[in-house]
């Protein structure tokens, strides 16, 4: 109850929080202008210049090709790491032996840098879809496995006992108790997985592709086209924000309707 009061109070003070946000954005823009004025223009273009360049990339169609390639790889990397991560996470939750058996894989997996996987999968699979996707799956799955495992561990024994007392069958328990109970963890694994997949795909594209935002960014750097690099960065951030606010946040709200005052940090 106390928390919902707090939200109510916050709701009333919305105007002042809006002022603060606008202030924050203005300060950011001012800092950008200042940097652009101090640095040589090709190192740090002005905001409008950058947007213009970005628009140029969109208009010429180059942007779609590379953004599309990156999105496509992100999708497959994400799906693959969700499958592998969920499988290992569930296995870790099943019993003590399997938890101990799979823990080293997760721990070692967390300690291997993405560039190492990117190099390995490129050498194995060449310039195919499997290169960046493989690197993404291998780097991302441990994070998802941990979240799923925590979700399985979090299921309350009291509720399982209650269900047994009322003779609830296993499929119904799974659908009504186990999955909803693990849902926050599954979801935070999902978000984590998505957020990391973006990052790893762009890294893997340095080696393992001849298209994609990571590839273009590296290329512009090597050709000293720094303004274009900024334009790519802006475009990609816009895409990420669209996915974040247009897709993930609404989904989160729907999934967690019952938790009115729950507070979700971006990355779980």
């Amino acid at each position: 109850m106390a928390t919902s009061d707090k939200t109510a109070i916050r709701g009333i003070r919305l105007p002042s929080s809006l002022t603060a946000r606008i202030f924050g954005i203005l300060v950011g823009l001012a800092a950008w202008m200042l940097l652009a004025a101090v640095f040589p223009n090709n190192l740090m273009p002005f905001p409008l210049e950058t947007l213009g360049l970005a628009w140029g990339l969109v208009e010429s169609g180059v942007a779609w090709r590379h953004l599309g390639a990156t999105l496509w790889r992100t999708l497959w990397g994400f799906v693959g790491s969700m499958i592998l991560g969920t499988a290992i996470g569930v296995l870790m939750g099943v019993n003590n032996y399997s938890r101990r058996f799979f823990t080293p894989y997760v721990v070692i997996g967390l300690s291997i840098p993405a560039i190492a996987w990117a190099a390995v999968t490129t050498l194995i699979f060449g310039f195919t879809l499997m290169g960046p996707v493989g690197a993404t799956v291998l780097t991302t799955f441990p994070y998802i496995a941990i979240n799923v495992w925590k979700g399985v561990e979090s299921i309350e024994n009291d509720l399982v006992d209650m269900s047994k007392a009322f003779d609830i069958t296993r499929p119904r328990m799974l659908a009504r108790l186990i999955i909803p109970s693990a849902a926050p963890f599954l979801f935070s694994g999902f978000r984590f997985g998505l957020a990391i997949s973006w990052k790893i795909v762009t890294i893997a594209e340095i080696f393992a592709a001849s298209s994609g935002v990571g590839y273009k960014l590296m290329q512009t750097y090597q050709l000293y086209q720094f303004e274009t690099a900024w334009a790519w960065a802006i475009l990609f951030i816009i895409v990420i924000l669209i996915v974040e606010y247009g897709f993930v946040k609404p989904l989160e709200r729907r999934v967690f309707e019952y938790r009115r005052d729950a507070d979700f940090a971006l990355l779980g």
Partner: protein
Amino acid sequence: MYTNGKVIFLESTVALLVFWALLAHGLALTDTISSPTLVFASLVELLLSGDWVVHMADTMRRVIYGFVLTTIIGTVLGVVMGMSDFWENALQDYITIGLALPSLFAAIFAAMWFGLSDVTPMVAAAAIAFPFLTQNVYEGVKNVNYELMEMSSAFDVSRNRAIRRVIFQSVLPEWFAGARYSFAICWKITTLAELVAASSGIGYMIEFQMHKLSITGVLTWTVLFTMVILFVEYGILQQIEKRVFAWRQSTEIGIMGGA
């Protein structure tokens, strides 16, 4: 229980190595996926030659630079955001973007600005890692148990003592968790930045081996670096955390942190 755990650990690592070896030798894929024996032989050779020392030292130095910068920015912003509603609102959008920002961007822009110097990995790592620490510190400050503060004032505990014994103590674990997490990010971004712009370091060597098309070389450097990281994370940081925060029941696997 303890030995039992060790036995299972051995079983699972051996299972992986055997699977790898069977795949490599059984299907004659040693050129494509190398093999445990090849990597082990090359690792021994590398360790004996001593060439790894300078690269490891360079990488570690850059990781520490980046981590120090991360800690300063992350802690200051986290405290400011936790204490003031205004700054919380003003900065939250930047934290959101910062958390989602692909590391490659930070590495490439740092490389453009600072070239082949230690500043490049330092700035890149800090730019990516600090939002995570800020987030943790901010939540820690927000979640200070005000019942304990009320209790303190009911017992006439001085303000300074309350800050030290309640606020500091309750934020410290969050801070440490965030710091560990951002450390993991720092070494990941440092290797990435070395790949983009450096002439030494682990990231540079992995790229070098990759351009030689030597999978064994790539894996050798990866294994070496992973072992060092595992030692730092579990042999040092986790032990510190266990001692300092013994009062907290924690089952975290730790060492998270997106690349």
